[in-house]
């Protein structure tokens, strides 16, 4: 049709595709992070849940300090501590049903352990004897993802697959504030939203990506404001308030389970330790900042709540701590044993069947090891 012919059809109307779309208002986060502890909302919280959260927080903190100590003893190659972030780690693990899946990022071994994975298996990657220490399918816990944000599309695909199979499974995926800048974050949230996949995205905004502060990472009003761009709800929560994190995540998990689609949760928290034991945090932040956050410690917040409401006493606190000490001692002891490794395993899991080429390389290594052993034997 030429321009000329089209002229007659003129109808000054809005673009035909334009329809009023989803109302964005309910997708936007509240202006302030959700809090429960120390607020009237705390009265509604289940005392048993609070107590359970507390126990896990105390264990979690002790786990963090123990793991950090193990780096100094050369028993771990590296440890990215989640001290200060235990409320997020613990709530993420506790909010899930057994059949649900957890997708941790590299910092989240505490969530992995809290979900029930043996801490030695959880620390395998960081000890360096293998990559993933546990069987992901047995625990419904994906491998720790070192390449940032790349685990998020996995969570979406898995949740979508479960729905395709008719299984009632929710995936909870964890990522840092820095990780939200990666393209994979964007693609994962968009796929999840379009597919209405049962996924909960938990962003732990701990203020830094190694040395880079949030202000160099984003100009957004909050990370939770990204949600509306995908057509999903964005929620903002005080990441050091274990009860609040649990509540917000629980609602998101319920929503996902009920077919309501994904939610993006931003938990505002702080990384008390350096990025890892190898990092020097004094290069990029002040002691004052760290001190201010120590005053908003997740353990203290919950302990005070429990104490003030008479849900725990000094003896109870002491018992929890003792328990955590026992856990730490046991972990230390087990980590002090050298793992038994077979170098020939290197070739076993590259493919379902090793290729002829890998068999050849395996034989070469075997011969080398044998020669080595013989030399050692001779030297003795």
């Amino acid at each position: 049709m030429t321009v000329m012919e089209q002229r007659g059809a003129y109808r000054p109307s809005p673009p035909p595709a334009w329809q009023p779309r989803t109302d964005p208002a309910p997708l936007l986060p509240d202006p302030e992070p959700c809090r429960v502890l120390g607020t009237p909302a705390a009265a509604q919280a289940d005392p048993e849940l609070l107590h359970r959260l507390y126990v896990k927080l105390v264990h979690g903190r002790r786990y963090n300090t123990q793991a950090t100590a193990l780096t100094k003893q050369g028993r771990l190659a590296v440890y990215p501590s989640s001290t200060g972030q235990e409320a997020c780690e613990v709530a993420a693990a506790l909010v899930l049903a057994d059949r649900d899946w957890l997708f941790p990022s590299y910092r989240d071994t505490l969530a992995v352990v809290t979900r029930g994975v043996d801490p030695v298996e959880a620390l395998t990657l960081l000890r360096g004897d293998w990559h993933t220490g546990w069987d992901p399918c047995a625990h419904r816990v994906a491998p720790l993802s070192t390449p940032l944000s790349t685990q998020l599309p996995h969570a979406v695909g898995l949740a979508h697959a479960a729905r395709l199979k008719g299984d009632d499974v929710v995936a909870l995926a964890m990522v840092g504030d820095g990780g939200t800048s990666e393209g994979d974050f964007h693609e994962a949230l968009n796929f999840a939203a379009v597919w209405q996949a049962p996924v909960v995205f938990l962003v732990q905004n701990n203020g830094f990506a190694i040395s880079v502060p949030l202000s160099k990472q984003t100009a957004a009003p909050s990370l939770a404001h990204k949600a509306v761009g995908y057509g999903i709800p964005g929620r903002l929560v005080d990441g050091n308030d274990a009860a609040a994190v649990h509540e917000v995540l629980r609602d998101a998990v319920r929503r996902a389970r009920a077919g309501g689609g994904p939610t993006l949760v931003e938990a505002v928290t702080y990384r008390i330790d350096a990025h890892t034991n190898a990092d020097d945090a004094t290069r990029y932040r002040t002691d004052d900042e760290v001190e201010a956050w120590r005053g908003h410690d997740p353990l203290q917040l919950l302990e005070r709540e429990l104490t003030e409401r008479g849900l725990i006493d000094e003896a109870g606190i002491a018992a929890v701590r003792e328990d955590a000490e026992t856990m730490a001692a046991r972990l230390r002891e087990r980590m002090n044993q050298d793992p038994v490794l077979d170098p020939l395993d290197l070739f076993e899991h590259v493919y379902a069947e090793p290729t002829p080429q890998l068999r050849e390389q395996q034989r070469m290594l075997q011969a080398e090891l044998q020669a080595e052993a013989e030399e050692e034997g001779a030297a003795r």
Partner: protein
Amino acid sequence: MTTVALKPATFAQALTRALRDALADDPSVHILGEDVGTLGGVFRITDGLAAEFGDHRCFDTPLAEAGILGTAVGMAMYGLRPVVEMQFDAFAYPAFEQLASHVAKMRNRTRGTMPLPLTIRIPYGGGIGGVEHHSDSSEAYYMATPGLHVVTPATVADAYGLLRAAIASDDPVVFLEPKRLYWSKDSWNPDDPTPVEPAGRAVVRRTGRSATLITYGPSLPVCLEAAEAAREEGWDLEVVDLRSLVPFDDETVCASVRRTGRAVVVHESGSFGGPGGEIAARVTERCFHYLEAPVLRVAGFDIPYPPPMLERHHLPGVDRILDAVARLQWEAES
């Protein structure tokens, strides 16, 4: 022996048939990618599959290759067998991170507890007059990534057989489809399709005694043509179709080269750092004392893929192959 009714079919039809049979045979097979649903893909390889098997078995995704491959990884983690279509070779690059850091490593990382039965179909190579980014030969990238199978059919029967094998594999397979062969035809019985091939085996497509042409995918027909033309020059060329780049069938290839004593590797991919270097090196390692001449390579130039009007100069053709054969030191050097 029963006689089967052989009908001409295109390479593309054989692929479609393989996907259809896989969907029918195994409910855990799901196809995803850009435009694979309603449209049937830009090359129509998934034509009719969404209609026949439903939107949940063959579906369009948002336009994001890392997202496509990343979600397919998640699907495979849950036990499905996703088949991903990348629209063109170069548009698989955004998914490179997922491929190299996850697809290739998941089984290894988890000591075999989390295999990824995942097929990644990538139309590749040139010769169809595509504008830039539509004609890359990217196999070198995948070959250099341990943990991936890399497979590429060159005949109608293999299009079917190798794709079935790829989907049935418990490992991730990068399945490279030579796009200029999509419309090639061969006699093939679509009602009794070739059984699934054991993957990882090369095949001698033409026997000969003078020298071996080692090739795969889009260059196979060119090599067969060159072998015909070589008869005029008095050369009787053997042609080996690799079919699988990973794993590599040293046995078949080396047996041929030991017989002929001379070899030329032919592929469209650039020469430098391309598959030919690996192939020439490993053949030489294994057949050194049988070789009358160095293993030569006829490959694309080491340049970005040329614009359509110049691609014929870039692609290895019959003449360039014969020139290489001529350089195989037929007369003893002084």
